[in-house]
């Protein structure tokens, strides 16, 4: 009974944070599926979302849900512009695109540090308090984060499955030139893909801001986690991102029960190596 409680608590722990990392990974893999580039600055959009949460919700007192919507749209637009101006011209040289995204990471991080300072900032959660039941605990804010992430993932699924833009995105991901021949404005689609990918990361950052804290370097860890998730799940595969996220969430919550944190990390990377050797395309065939 005692062990079961621990195990369930571990699962709840894993789920609450894994769902958010799935959001970030979905953004990363969406960008990769359409444009074939690895956006190294992806974590910085997560960070921008956190700062948006701080300045709009905490400082200016905006309603939390409204803040999420505003952040999503604003970062989407920002990402769209970045793609058109910076990444589209570099599409023929993915390595150069990667270096450019590295430059973008430095500019965003340093810029935010200079403008807003390096002190860690707190964002109050709109749902304070802790829930108890059956010997398990979960904070209300984490519960909200879980639900909001699930909603966002569902919305993304609907968008891709049924909306006109979503169909166009999937067509472009499948076969770029064919999509262009069919009259799809591939330029606008790639901009939209990038914008949406960044917006997903920003939404994740805004959601987790009250759970942790806001600081210019907060995007580094989510980027690594998203990367790992995408590798495990398969680059460019959206269902793969969900599967990969589930795997990582489980590993991170159950792992520390038995191993030291260093060993957990080592196991995680070891799993990637094995997976790449055995099934490079990832857990889910895209």
């Amino acid at each position: 009974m005692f062990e079961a409680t621990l195990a369930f608590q571990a699962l709840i722990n894993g789920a609450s944070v894994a769902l958010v990392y799935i959001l970030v990974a979905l953004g990363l893999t969406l960008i990769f599926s359409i444009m074939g580039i690895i956006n190294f600055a992806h974590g910085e959009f997560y960070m921008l979302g956190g700062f948006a949460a701080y300045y709009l919700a905490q400082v200016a007192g905006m309603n939390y849900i409204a803040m999420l919507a505003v952040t999503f749209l604003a970062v989407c637009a920002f990402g769209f512009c970045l793609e058109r101006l910076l990444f589209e011209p570099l599409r023929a040289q993915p390595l150069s695109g990667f270096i450019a995204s590295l430059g973008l990471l430095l500019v965003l991080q340093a810029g935010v540090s200079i403008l807003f300072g390096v002190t860690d900032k707190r964002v109050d959660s709109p749902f304070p308090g802790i829930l108890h039941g059956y010997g398990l605990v979960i904070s209300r804010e984490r519960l909200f984060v879980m639900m909001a992430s699930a909603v966002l993932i569902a919305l993304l699924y609907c968008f891709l499955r049924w909306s006109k833009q979503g169909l166009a995105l999937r067509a472009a991901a499948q076969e770029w030139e064919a999509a262009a021949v069919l009259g799809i404005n591939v330029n606008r689609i790639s901009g939209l893909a990038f914008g949406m990918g960044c917006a997903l990361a920003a939404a994740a950052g805004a959601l987790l801001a009250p759970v942790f804290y806001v600081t210019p370097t907060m995007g580094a860890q989510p980027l690594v986690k998203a990367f790992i998730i995408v590798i495990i799940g398969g680059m460019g595969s959206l269902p793969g991102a969900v599967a990969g996220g589930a795997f990582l969430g489980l590993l991170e919550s159950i792992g520390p029960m038995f191993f030291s944190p260093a060993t957990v990390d080592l196991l995680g990377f070891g799993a990637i190596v094995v997976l790449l050797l055995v099934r490079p395309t990832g857990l889910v065939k895209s």
Partner: protein
Amino acid sequence: MHAFILIAALLCATTWTAAAANETLKIGVIGPMSGPAAQWGVEIARGAEMKAEEINAAGGLKIGNATYDIRTIPYDHKANAAEATTVANRLVFQDKVSYIVGNSIGATTTAAQTITEPNKVLFLFVSWGKQSLGPQYPYSFRETFSDVEVVEPFYRWLKEQKKINTVALLDVNDQSGKTTGASMVEAAKALELKILADEYFDRALTDFYPLFNRILAMKPDYVDLGSVPPGTAGLLLKQLHEMGYAGTKGWVSGAILEGAIKIAGPEAADGLLAPWSANLEGANTPPAVKEIVAKYQKKYGEPAGNYVVDNYVALDIVTQAMKAAGTTDTEKVVGHLAGKKFDSAWGPVVVGGKGTYGVDHQFLRPITITQYQNGKMVDVGSAMPRDLMAK
């Protein structure tokens, strides 16, 4: 014609003032000024800068027959050892400093020492780690408490006052964390406290639920946050609270307490014990310290942490030693630092530590143990570092 005279007069005036102008004494400052530990580096740099400005405003530093304006030169080593070597090189060989006042993060101190020691550069730092001081480093000094000075007296106090028997020790998996962890384990063993957990985690970790899931099941009396940075401490406190921990909690290295408390929230932080950090706004806080804190708030718009005062005092003490030596030659100044007693904003400070390090290069003063109670930091006890008890 008039213009000519005017220009000549101006020229004379400037050369006259130039002749009477002070020489410049360059003081290097290194630290992590970007990245996760940036708060520490920024506070260290600002603390030195504030003291330098004060000295200059009062006419400069008078040593022997010369007067010096102090100029601080800060460099960011980004918490990276290789970068620390580079900026130390730059300070020593290009900027030609003989003093570096302020650094944090043990690995960077070790890296910088490979440059400062052979070149007789007086190097003061806040970073922890017993290996950083000793007879093999004649020019290195630590300007504030490290784990060695604080942990053992604090744990003794804990055992007596709070009746602690079992402990869970946490820390970051890096050089500072590992050395602090070693001190905590050593002190716990010496006092026969049962160590239920001795865990190290990645510096960037933010979700501690899995870790606590395992540790709290063992029901420790006391959880120590070791030498984690303020943001991490805030999260640890918050998540401990969410998981229902009701025992004693302490943060041995607790610096920038307000930062951690802000993130944890007053409820989660309540009861936190901090032996390292001196209360900057308490009833027993020296007025000189309160003055520094007020000035910092006014100048930078943020509350000051301990590192500000520590580095301010460090520069103060070094300049006092220079005056006593009558020169800026580091070989002589060292002799007027080691083993001596100084007056400072903290009160009396003794540069001792021979029993622990083999040399008197550790700044020592009484330890005040503070606790966060009902929204305020309260002094709840005091202790003496072992090397100070002998004096």
